[in-house]
């Protein structure tokens, strides 16, 4: 793989940029692979990369029905943080944030991590008490968090209205939280996995799972059947559809999550601001666009569109808190399909079908987890045992009653 560096960029400029190699190949599907990963999103591609890099498992195919990174990895608002509540979540997401801090170097691809801080707001005395408890839990888990007064918040976010319809009583910030470039994460992992021998097969949709005697033997696809020693489902939004191919029902419902960007404007917001109770999170991109998201639409959907009521809730929360943005035009709006679980915690690990693994249930928070999700699922698929960081996220937690309720720390009440 051709390294990206200032020198190779200079060399490219001097040769009129005609010698850049493709970042990944377009191979023909083989009849069989040791591991088939369904879904070339962030989690699928990262798992393939770590399987090859950490375990030498290179006979791997990542199958994608569309184009790689075109699902939720290509549709999120890029928030990269680790301010969760319970110890298991804190350990997992903090591990992921630390990997993000080294990711550009590891992948030789600039993921543009910008640790500008994520500020969570409280609009009443009771919310502030809850936020203090949350901020304390984060510190107990040895992760950075700091409670801020309204005056400190105003200093950080001059355009925020503290005394409007949603008064700001205070908040807390994770200073190491921030944003990163979602497409770069997908492309960086794809390029790195490809270099290690992984096959990425796009426009290859899985239409069936070949299960005999309670074990998966392979997949059926729009480009023919492919045998597999192990299969990993990494198809956020469509987890239930793929699981049904193996006769499994999951504790997942698929909802639309919308996001939108405004026309660009000069730099005016250099922190991510999130308000859980009024359903809004906002940041400003490097291109000057205001990037906005909120809660999911109210009903199950695979449409990737979303409707006006959820959009209106999110935009009205924004303009109440940032009156200066009320005249901005929305430039683009889109939706993704998110796996909602009963406890807002992902589902990772083996399934009741031998050799069939699942990474799903990521809800509205899968993007920040890509590095740790890939690394832990690679361990799990390679060894057959759940990685210690994800042992409590297994599908079996529901029948054990061991749910991990991250509804609050997911950021936006559902």
């Amino acid at each position, binding site marked *: 793989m051709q390294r990206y560096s200032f020198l190779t960029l200079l060399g490219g400029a001097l040769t009129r940029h005609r010698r850049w190699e493709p970042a990944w190949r377009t191979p023909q599907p083989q009849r069989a692979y040791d591991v088939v990963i369904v879904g070339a999103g962030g989690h699928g591609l990262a798992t393939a990369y770590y399987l090859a890099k950490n375990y030498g498992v290179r006979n791997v195919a990542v199958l994608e029905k569309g184009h790689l990174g075109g699902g939720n990895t290509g549709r999120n608002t890029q928030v990269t943080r680790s301010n969760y509540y319970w110890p298991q979540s804190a350990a997992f997401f903090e591990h992921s944030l630390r990997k993000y801090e080294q990711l550009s170097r590891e992948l030789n691809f600039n993921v543009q991590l910008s640790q500008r801080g994520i500020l969570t707001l409280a609009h009443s005395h009771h919310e502030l008490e809850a936020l203090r408890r949350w901020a304390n839990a984060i510190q107990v888990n040895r992760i950075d968090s700091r409670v801020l007064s309204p005056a400190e918040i105003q200093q950080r976010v001059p355009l925020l209205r503290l005394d409007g319809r949603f008064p700001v009583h205070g908040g807390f910030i994770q200073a190491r939280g921030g944003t990163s470039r979602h497409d770069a994460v997908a492309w960086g992992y794809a390029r790195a996995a490809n270099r290690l021998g992984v096959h990425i097969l796009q426009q290859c949709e899985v239409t069936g799972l070949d299960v005999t005697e309670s074990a998966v033997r392979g997949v059926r696809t729009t480009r023919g059947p492919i045998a597999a020693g192990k299969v990993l489902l990494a198809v956020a939004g469509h987890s239930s559809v793929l699981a049904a191919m193996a006769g499994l029902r999951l*504790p997942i*419902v698929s909802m639309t999550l919308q996001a939108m960007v405004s026309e660009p404007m000069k730099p005016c917001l250099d922190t991510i601001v999130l308000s859980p109770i009024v359903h809004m999170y906002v940041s400003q991109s490097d291109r000057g666009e205001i990037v906005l998201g909120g809660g999911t639409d109210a009903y199950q959907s695979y449409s990737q569109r979303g409707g006006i009521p959820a959009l209106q809730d999110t935009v009205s929360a924004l303009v109440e808190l940032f009156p200066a943005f009320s005249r901005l035009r929305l430039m683009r709006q889109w939706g993704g399909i998110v796996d909602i679980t*009963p406890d807002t915690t992902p589902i990772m690990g083996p399934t009741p079908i031998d050799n069939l693994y699942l990474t799903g249930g990521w809800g509205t928070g899968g993007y920040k987890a890509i590095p740790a999700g890939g690394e832990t699922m690679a361990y799990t698929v390679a060894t057959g045992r759940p990685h210690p960081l994800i042992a409590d996220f297994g599908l079996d937690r529901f029948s054990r009653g061991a749910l991990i309720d991250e509804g609050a720390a997911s950021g936006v009440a559902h």
Partner: protein
Amino acid sequence: MLQISCPWCGVRDEDEFRYGGQSHVTRPALNCSDAEWADYLFSRDNPKGVHHERWLHVSGCNRWFNVARHTVTHEILLVYRMGERKPDVTTSQRSDYLGPRSERE
């Protein structure tokens, strides 16, 4: 904006209602296994296609009813009362519909 035909109040916008998830989820006998109980509480069909689901008219009559809706096109194929048996609905079946067609997005 979905337009949902409440059996008592007529066609209203979706934001007059609260969503109640999958219909016809039957509670098992109380001496069932943990796995069966968890299945009842948490496992859902979540189809990419016709979904039978519950809606509550919170801004109106405050009654529950059932809807068969396609989860990709959002087309509402049938509205029927709470307590009725799960009907066999295909995308071609429209004669039982109680109101105007939902808005095609």
